[in-house]
């Protein structure tokens, strides 16, 4: 298949770049710091809980791996939605946007199930340092995913009502950038929080 069609021209700016896209990248750069601080806090307090439950008692690596895979694949459907609108394929846009929102919802459902399982095991945000840092980090990530799903569904409804045109593809691109960011943050969390802990679970 040929490469994507030419994007519509935007008003002249001092950088020659669309300011909305520039703003989105500036936001994503700053959001790195937000999640970096939460990851740092998790790592600093790792292994310092005085009482359980401890990570190795509650983590389920195969379950979280499937969850991570689902979010990873939602990045594919998201970029396919962008490719669809860039070539004027509005049917494809609707399909891939809905698929992305559904995969995001599956991830959130998985996180809800994981959280409730942890609570059943006695781990809450107030239980110990592990609980506080874990729920804060993954909870804020879940909040980001929730915002992403709402944005995607709002674009999907607009597409259903034919309120979004191919020349407005930048809106989808910006939503996509946010979505992919949420995905890369989970790549880091999945490794730093879950996989690094795995040997303690297996042995």
């Amino acid at each position: 298949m040929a490469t994507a069609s030419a994007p519509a021209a935007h008003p002249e700016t001092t950088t020659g770049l669309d300011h909305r896209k520039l703003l989105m990248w500036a936001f994503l750069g700053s959001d790195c710091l937000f999640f970096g601080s939460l990851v740092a806090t998790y790592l600093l307090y790792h292994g310092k809980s005085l009482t359980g439950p401890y990570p190795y008692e509650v983590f389920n690596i195969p379950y979280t791996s499937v969850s991570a895979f689902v979010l990873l694949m939602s990045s594919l459907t998201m970029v396919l939605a962008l490719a669809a609108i860039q070539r004027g394929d509005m049917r494809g846009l609707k399909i891939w946007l809905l698929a992305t929102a559904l995969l995001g919802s599956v991830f959130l459902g998985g996180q809800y199930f994981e959280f409730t399982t942890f609570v059943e095991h006695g781990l809450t945000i107030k239980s110990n340092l592990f609980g506080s840092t874990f729920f804060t980090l993954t909870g804020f990530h879940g909040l980001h995913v929730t915002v992403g799903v709402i944005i995607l569904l709002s674009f999907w409804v607009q597409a259903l009502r034919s309120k979004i045109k191919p020349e407005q593809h930048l809106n989808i691109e910006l939503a996509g950038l946010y979505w992919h960011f949420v995905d890369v943050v989970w790549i880091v969390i999945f490794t730093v929080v879950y996989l690094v802990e795995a040997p303690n679970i297996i042995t």
Partner: protein
Amino acid sequence: MATTAQRHEQAHPTPAKYAAIAVILALITLVEVGVVYAGVGGLLLPILIVLSATKFGLVAMFYMHLKFDHRLFSALFVGGILLTTAILIALMSLFRVFFS
């Protein structure tokens, strides 16, 4: 400069290439989980860092189009990542995580 930006966007990959990247990402995730269960001892952390950094890079370069878009976008994002890394190292050092 607008022309440059548009020329960059025209070079976005095809859906087939996006799918190929997704297969690579899925395979890396499989390897990550496999490595964890293989029991590689002290090599686990460096291997996981390399694998997750590869996944991160693939998504950022191809799905977020940093490989094709204007460098200013990369500068904003990579700048954030570098600052984050610096803060992480500073905090770990302050709390003596590296020396414990």
